[in-house]
């Protein structure tokens, strides 16, 4: 399972960002290989359709689960079509805490 979380900083202790489209970073974690990667949100500098650009990048990374505090309407539509599951954790959950919840 490949998980992508919207983050404000590029480290494991960063809390999951409230906004999917306007977060600074995405943390991408592969639960099988345990590989962890951070990518800059490509949509952050865009005036419109920022979320769509970010979502397309995550789909191209074969992400199965997207994690953020909120997803915009267009992003929801794209993720539903691409079969990407959306997860909203409790406020202030860190990326590390989220990864630790995955059943070993």
């Amino acid at each position, binding site marked *: 399972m490949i998980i992508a979380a919207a983050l404000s900083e590029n480290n494991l202790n960063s809390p999951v960002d409230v906004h999917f489209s306007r977060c600074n970073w995405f943390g991408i974690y592969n639960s099988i290989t345990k590989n962890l990667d951070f990518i800059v949100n490509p949509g952050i500098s865009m005036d419109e359709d920022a979320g769509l650009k970010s979502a397309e990048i995550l789909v191209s990374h074969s992400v199965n*689960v997207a994690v953020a505090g909120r997803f915009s309407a267009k992003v929801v539509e794209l993720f539903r079509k691409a*079969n990407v599951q959306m997860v*909203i954790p409790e406020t202030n959950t860190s990326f590390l805490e989220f990864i630790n*919840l995955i059943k070993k």
Partner: protein
Amino acid sequence: MARTKKQRSIQRAPNYSGFKPFGVQKPVECEVKLSLEEYESMKLCDYDMLNHEDAANMMKVSRPTFTRIYQSARQKLAKALVEVSVICIEGGHATIDIIWYMCAHCRISFDISGNKTPLCPLCGSGNITENK
């Protein structure tokens, strides 16, 4: 006989019931009822920054209908702010497009695409509740 109102699609109902003003001397008596579709129209236009055409498509209504819903939402919100009223978000003619589930163990909300059995994506537990 008046035509029955078409159901409007919303993505997710807010997980709170409304707002209360603070810092007022007397108890607040007035109450403004914001329907779920009015809440959704404000979210789509003023938070997600969609234009009326796109927002109307999202809610599966015509653009003029969307504009009426949005206008009503703005008027109610302005009334609540000026007249120091409690805002209750409830009712309306809305259907929730996506079913969100909650896992009590992992404390997450998630959606399920297709006809899959609802299971928590993290712990795999089937002990989940529908988030209404």
